[in-house]
């Protein structure tokens, strides 16, 4: 399961971050870390990007980036 496949309202726990290099570092700097709870809030009107809640703030990222974030569904 990955973050891009969660529907709005669903939450998950991050189990792995697949990307490497600057992208991964950037995600980690924004609080996207293994073990972190993440909740999908919205999908943009045209279907991409998505908005998620993490570390009690709102972050948006493209689905392509979200696909690289493995999650385990928690709710």
């Amino acid at each position, binding site marked *: 399961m990955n973050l891009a496949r969660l529907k709005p309202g669903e939450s998950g726990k991050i189990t792995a971050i697949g990307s490497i290099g600057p992208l991964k*570092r950037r995600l*980690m700097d924004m609080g996207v870390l*293994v073990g972190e709870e993440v909740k999908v809030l919205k999908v943009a009107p*045209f279907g991409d990007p998505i908005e998620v809640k993490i570390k009690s703030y709102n972050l*948006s990222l*493209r689905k392509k980036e979200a696909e690289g974030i493995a999650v385990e569904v928690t709710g």
Partner: protein
Amino acid sequence: MSTQLKVKENAVGEEAKASGKAALRPVEARVITVAVAGNPNSGKSTLINAIAGSRLHVGNWAGVTVEKKEAELEFGGRKIRLVDLPGTYSLSPYTQEEIVARDYLVHERPDLIINVVDATNLERNLYLTVQIQELGIPMVMALNIYDEAEAKGYRIDVEGIEKMLGITVIPTSATKKSGLDDLLRSVLKTADDLAGHAPKKLNYGEDIEGAADFVAQALRKSHPALLERYPQRWLLLKLMEQDSHVMKELDLGRYDFLDQALQHLKKAHGEDIESIMADARYSLASGLTREILQKPELRQMELTEKIDRVVLNRFLGIPIFLAAMWLLFKLTFDLSAPFGEWIGAMTEGPFKRWAAAILGTIGAPDWTVSLVNDGVIAGVGFVLVFVPVIFAMMFFITFLEGSGYMARAAFVMDRTMHSIGLHGKSFIPMLLGFGCNVPGIYATRTLENPKDKVLTALLVPLMSCGARLPVYVLFVGAFFPNNSGTVIWSLYIMGIFLAVMMGLVFKKTLFRGEAPMFIMELPPYRMPSFSSLCLHTWEKGKHFLFKAGTYIFAVSILVWFMLNLPWGVEQKRDSYLGKAGAVIAPIFEPVGFGTWEAASSLITGVIAKEIVVGTMGEIYAPKHEEKEDAPTLGEDLKEIVVSFGTAAKTAVTTLLYIPGEAEEEEDQSALKQAIMAGFTPLSSYAFMAFVLLYMPCMIVGVAMRQEFGTWKWMAVGFVYQTVLAWTVALIIYQGGTFLGLGG
């Protein structure tokens, strides 16, 4: 060791001597250098604006497109120099902003740091704080947006933070200007005893600390100088992270001791080293947040959530976005246009009359009158007419950013813009481009990634701006009076179509490689402070006026000389401009308008595209000047005041949609007649397409230079657009002739 390294060592030696000298002077005489760091959206800009006000000096960090703000102020009889660092989430080596911020902190070593922290978003802000602690520079934390945190029912243990980090913490609210004096007092207090205010060394856990000790010992043996030159703890951690920027700077090559230290760490954690370090830092930030922050149990739905339910709604999101964009466009251009026209009329009329009168009384020759009026005053007027629109654009863009809607607009539009290789935030510069390309270029500053920024700026000039419209109107009136709307529309569509095409081409050529990422915070909605908005707008407007103004002025003077040299030239054909037109005219032979008249008009169009019409008027159908009774000084002054009032009224009424009298149409029939003799319908369409596409006006070029700090992108833009324009005109003219549309 490389020579570069030695040079740096010397520089540091000098610096040490200099600071040694400074220490001998009484502390009061020394300027305290304070770097202001913090996350984006932490209210840092507002805080700096509130403290420094108009003393802020805005420029760029050397060699990059990142804005640099500085201010020198006096507080409590002491001099403080504030240096605003770019807002960053981290001090990693990947974005321009982060590199600028950390290079400043590491190499320039400010006396202390004001760290602006968003009290409503502590954990992520403390992640940056933890990294700043590594530098060992004394820190005063501005716990900003504190009022909002209190209103939300957050209880923050301020003393707890102070104790745990070994720093001073001052709750502030930049928008309400509260806590700022306390903040500055703490800065002074800290500056008086810098050694006593070293921040605490935070414990990153047994494994990391063990590895750090190991690296420190190895370094002490092999590179003792390095430990002196860099903040020690920071250096150790960066080496362990194998930070690409530091590794390159130190040029250490591979060191076995590093691998040895890291091997154990990686084995124990089963991850790569960057993840291990990010985890350690975030654990500290999370732990600290848990200790000091108490949130209310019952959480109400926040305002931001409520607004986003509507603004980002699946069905309402797009209409709201379009409405917001329409409003932005309308406010930017309609509100500023009457003032621009007022400035234009002022320089055209009274100023020129006064200059002529003054020069007349001192008996200056006629050509000086022309130089002053058509060169100097026209040049200054040229710069000034852009001021209202730039002020309006900056004001509304800053408002959109500060309020939080800019991020939403990018969120809504990203899918569409991404398909042509752009970013969601590229939409606004492109949209503004339809009004005027210049504010469009300046609006690219909202894009963070340099790649996105440059690509957007290269495409903005393909949006058909208001200055091209008079050219279309003239030609359409002459050749396509029955299909005028369709023909003009086709040109706008052509510009958009070619922007999409060129976007794809650039993506595959100049900007090949990984597409920039889109990882963006959607900050809470907030009302930006009005004074901060005005200040920001003023800084930008001032910058345009003096920096860009100089170049624009210079080019205007140059064109005046081209038109009026050699001395005493009577026929336009014999002026340098006419001669230059004749020289390049053959280039336009295959595209349908290879005459010196058309070519000369295109040359002057580089100043601003609507000038093409003016030049054509002068060349094709010169008017005989009629002497009018010059108004008196008193009448002129009265007219200036009255017309300003009219401008203000027009600005308001156009916004409110009160229909006024139709504008007077200038009589162009003589010019139209002349043009109909010189062009065919087909060549006129090729000419309009060429005017749309060929090199943007010089003001766009100067704006690009200002935004990117180099002439390179302006040159790229000028060349590609001119080649594109010629090619398109060729296809239209030759294709049309082939299809039997010529003649």
